[in-house]
């Protein structure tokens, strides 16, 4: 497919305009609300990074107890035992369900950890003006936004298990305190990523006054 490849791309801000990130329409710079869709307009969200870090920190604070306390408590013949996220995955793997153990480990450990690292990296790269590939960073950001919500899977697993496994005295499953912490951590990191104004990644090009190799 033919694509326009101008050597010097003009941004809406360069052109003295402000873009609506909700509906992609552009307006004169001083416009406060998008006349088409009603969204609030800001050329660059100056508070973006503060909000990213604020949500990031509370997300991390919730993520620690989420790993230390049990996600679910199983009562089998009157004896109760708790399973943490990692503990539950290990038990699954020992019972031979390697694939499912991997799904849990990826969704509940790898994705949240990767997300903390990725969001911190993106925010720092903008704050410190790092010269890493802008395209790669944008793709990383879009991936974080796309994948982050899938971490919620473990909360749903706990919901289904504790609703279903209620067999009077023989076996019953109750949700553990980590479930709430974990769900909050997922919500806060989603909010952290959504607070990030990805246009900031590209602004440093203009600061440098040169077009960078985009590939």
């Amino acid at each position, binding site marked *: 497919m033919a694509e326009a490849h101008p050597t010097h*791309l003009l941004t809406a801000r360069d052109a003295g305009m402000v873009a609506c990130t909700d509906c992609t329409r552009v307006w004169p710079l001083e416009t406060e609300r998008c006349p088409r869709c009603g969204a609030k307009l800001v050329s660059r969200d100056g508070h973006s990074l503060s909000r990213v870090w604020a949500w990031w920190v509370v997300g991390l604070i919730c993520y620690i107890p989420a790993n230390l306390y049990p996600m679910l408590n199983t009562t089998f013949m009157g004896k109760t035992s708790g399973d943490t996220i990692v503990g539950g995955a290990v038990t699954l793997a020992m019972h031979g369900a390697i694939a499912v153990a991997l799904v849990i480990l990826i969704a509940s450990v790898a994705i949240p950890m990767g997300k903390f690292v990725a969001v911190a990296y993106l925010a720092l790269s903008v704050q410190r003006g790092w010269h890493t590939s802008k395209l790669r960073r944008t793709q990383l950001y879009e991936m974080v936004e796309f994948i982050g919500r899938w971490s*919620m899977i473990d909360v749903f697993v706990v919901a*289904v298990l504790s609703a279903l*496994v209620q067999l009077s005295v023989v076996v019953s499953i109750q949700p553990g305190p980590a479930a*709430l912490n974990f769900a909050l951590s997922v919500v806060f990191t989603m909010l952290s990523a959504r607070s990030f104004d990805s246009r900031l990644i590209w602004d440093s090009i203009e600061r440098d006054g040169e077009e960078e190799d985009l590939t």
Partner: protein
Amino acid sequence: MTHSPTIGDDLEDLIACPTCDALYRVDAPGNGERAVCSRCHHVLIAPVEGAILRVVALALTIVILLVTALFMPFLSIEASGLHNATSIFEAGLAFSRAHMVILSLAVISLIIFIPILRALLLIYVLTPLMLRRRPWPGAHTAFRLSEHLRPWSMAEIFVLGVGVALVKITAMAHVELGMAFWLFALLVVVTVFQDGYLCRWSIWHALEESPEPGAPPSLAPAEEAPAHG
């Protein structure tokens, strides 16, 4: 395709990439084609033939599937002569037994209310466009809200969670899959198709046109834009 803007372009012919702020002059792609931001590769415009009709149909399907699923048996287990069944609603409420009412509300919102709300908003926004009428009052706010709700609509993640939960218990109990389970599985497929058909720019463009009653429709905005060469 999109091109660099030149002096004298009308504002309404311009589009800015929401991801990187690059400015383009709109030269809307045909159905099935895509306009991609040349520097950050964000998909700007991706119209699909008859998208509005398809999205409305799929949104209606989502509402019917979800509401029906609420009243159908979801899962039941049997082990050593004991039996227990749960509905989707009861699965959501599981946390409230462990003093986590807020989490119960959140789970029920994420898997039931938000998907239904989002589908209803889309029906509200797109039905007049489909019937070639003026948009209904508040359609712009409704569409903006629906787009903001998109990441919080987690029915498909719930389905995968059910799958993982089933693997965990099949070893210790016999599990029966109810109708609601299959309806939810179907819901995942419908949602994926719906999101594939939904081109944000085309809908905003169609909403903006808001034709006079009786005027020619703006069903396929792509056809009204300048021919691309």
